[in-house]
């Protein structure tokens, strides 16, 4: 059942067969995720059959991965199925057994591994994620106008029971909550043209990093392709996550960290007197220290400039590449920074063999009310729920998504100096035990800051399988 790894690759055929949200981003303004239950199997299969064959007046077409050129559709429609969803559609037990165990168990059973405990625990998730066995499909509609979302949702609701809806949007200028420009660095796949990553110089990732049935980044190792090929080939897996971001608490923590640093004996090493003007336009010393903490915690300044190549200023002149840099023992980007934990690039890590093997494609949009980190009311805490509707795509959830979550973002096994600490932005932190080490220039050591809470809390999610169009047809004909 293995060894379907192909030597000759017809990338055009693959792009026509894979769903369109996998290899490239749609760059739309709006998204609507529908959590669906299959309650009428015949209606569901009919819908999928039409959707995978170009759609009709009453059924939206699944958007494939092929380039649509100038004929941009008014909306994009894609689906991911949970293990329960495959079962509900009538997939045989024999076939179900060929799916990986993390997928068959589902996200809620893997909670401890991926840091979903405490306030993030699945038993605290709101509907429909409090009944994970009923969430069969996560359907995603991308569009630029709300009317398109409503239209497609109404079509979908005729074939499935809509258990829940989550709307997301771009916050503008590529930003997400916490005020960072996001989605700058993504894996680049062999053979796949992606103009957003055209100038990136990270090694190309083999197609098996994201699609089932191709060579993986682990030399000689292949991931099992679910049986039969019609179902498994050109499929991908997704960790769909609803991640609440405590924007207000994050900004307040930056205030506290800057207060702490102003009194620290080594503060002049971190920020020489007078250097605050260089950090960013119009910043005083306190504001500059806030931005330094924010930049070191993430690995990028909030405007996207990498901290590694521009540690003194967020506006380097001449400009630096947003993607082309690497880490070393002398790096200014802290080993504990979010971005470096998630992708240590070519830097030395404890698990030498894992270098460049745990890559994830991230596709996400924000949800919830606006929050302006430059202008908010400190006296009246605005803790309304807001955050990210995130998709973390890969060929193997265990080897990629979970591997990053459990050993790198949390625990920090990849570098001895951060082992025992969690990711400052995304990690399962508690104020009593959290620690982050800020780097100082010229290898002058570090300043540790403490006391930050968990800023990102899981509020729902599911492991889904993103079948190829061939596979959706296969499911429609069961």
């Amino acid at each position, binding site marked *: 059942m293995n*060894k379907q790894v192909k030597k000759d690759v017809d990338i055009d055929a693959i792009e026509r067969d894979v769903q369109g949200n996998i290899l490239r981003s749609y760059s739309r303004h709006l998204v609507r995720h529908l959590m669906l239950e299959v309650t009428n199997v015949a209606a569901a299969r009919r819908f999928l059959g039409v959707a995978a064959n170009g759609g009709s007046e009453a059924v939206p077409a699944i958007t494939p991965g092929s380039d649509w050129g100038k004929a941009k559709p008014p909306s994009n429609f894609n689906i991911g199925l949970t293990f329960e969803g495959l079962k509900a559609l009538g997939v045989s037990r024999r076939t179900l057994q060929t799916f990986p165990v993390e997928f068959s168990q589902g996200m809620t059973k893997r909670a401890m591994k991926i840091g979903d405990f405490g306030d993030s625990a699945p038993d605290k998730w709101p509907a429909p994620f409090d009944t994970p066995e009923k969430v069969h499909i996560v359907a995603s509609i991308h569009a630029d106008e709300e009317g398109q979302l409503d239209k497609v949702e109404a079509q979908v609701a005729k074939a499935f029971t809509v258990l829940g809806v989550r709307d997301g949007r771009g916050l503008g200028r590529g930003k997400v909550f916490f005020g960072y420009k996001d989605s700058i660095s993504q894996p680049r796949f062999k053979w796949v043209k992606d103009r957003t990553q055209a100038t990136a110089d990270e090694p190309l990732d083999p197609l098996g990093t994201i699609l089932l049935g191709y060579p993986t980044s682990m030399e000689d190792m292949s991931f099992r392709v679910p049986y039969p090929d019609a179902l498994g080939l050109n499929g991908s897996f997704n960790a769909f996550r609803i991640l609440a971001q405590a924007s207000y608490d994050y900004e307040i923590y930056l205030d506290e960290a800057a207060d702490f640093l102003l009194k620290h004996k080594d503060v002049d090493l971190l920020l020489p007197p007078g250097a605050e003007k260089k950090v960013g336009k119009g910043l005083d010393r306190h504001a500059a220290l806030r931005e330094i903490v924010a930049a070191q915690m993430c690995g990028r300044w909030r405007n996207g400039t990498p901290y590694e190549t521009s540690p003194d200023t967020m506006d380097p002149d001449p400009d630096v590449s947003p993607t082309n840099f690497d880490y070393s023992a002398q790096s200014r980007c802290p080993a504990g920074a979010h971005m470096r934990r998630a992708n240590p690039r070519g830097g030395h890590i404890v*698990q030498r063999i*894992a270098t460049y093997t745990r890559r994830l494609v991230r596709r996400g949009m924000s949800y919830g009310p606006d929050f302006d980190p430059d202008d908010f009311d400190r006296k009246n805490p605005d803790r309304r729920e807001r955050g990210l509707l995130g998709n973390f795509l890969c060929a193997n959830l265990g080897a990629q998504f979970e*591997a990053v979550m459990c050993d790198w973002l949390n625990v920090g096994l990849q570098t001895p100096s951060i*082992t025992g600490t969690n990711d400052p932005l995304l990690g399962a932190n508690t104020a009593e035990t959290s620690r982050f080490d800020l780097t100082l220039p010229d290898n002058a050591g570090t300043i540790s800051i403490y006391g930050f809470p968990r800023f990102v809390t899981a509020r729902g999610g599911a492991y889904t399988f993103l079948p190829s169009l061939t596979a959706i047809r296969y499911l429609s004909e069961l």
Partner: protein
Amino acid sequence: MTNKDTWFNRYVNSLPTRGWFKLLSRYVVVPYWIWRDPKPKLPGGPRESPQPSENTQRMMNLIMPLKDPSPMGRAMAAMAIAQNVDEIFSGLDNVGTVHTARFLILGDNLCMISVYDGDFSNYIRDFIETIGSVFDAVISQIKGAEHMIPTCDHVEEFIEWVHDHDLFQAPDFPTDLFALQDAAKGLPTDGPAHEIMTLPRDLILQLHANPNLSLGGGYRSYPGYSAAQVRDKFGVGW
């Protein structure tokens, strides 16, 4: 029942050593309870924990049944290790998260006992990625594992197989056994509290399902530190 040192209490406490009671237990009481309240086999290896300190120095007790347990078969297994031991050890070095590992022939099994940091699946996957082709020679001596050779093409299946053959680790806090047994049966976690006096019975029933087990997570002289942290402190490179 009181804790007073009465003749009756002394007698009850001595029951497990009395021949008639041992016979009764073996042939009637235990089989009855196995029928009435069967316990599923509990999974092997350390459990996931939110404590960072619990995620370093985790124990693996991998018990692999020998294909041929005769002296000749044992010699074959010993040879499979001896011929590949240098590569296996340098592979473990490359995995980077391993404190110690050793091989035993015990009973009719080949055992790999090791202490590692972090996630179990990552450990096994990285191990196979590093030296899968060498380790296949070892796996070829094991009963019921032939279908996973070469392991690098069956990595998910191999990880599950190892997990299944890793010894169950009895909890360090005895009463935690209740929650593990409930979870294995798919019972809700917020059910009624268990009576402490049923613990011995539940342990006996579990030992029926998991005859071999690790008694707790073991002793660590420097808890919470990873192999790389120790190497770093000694300046031997990580």
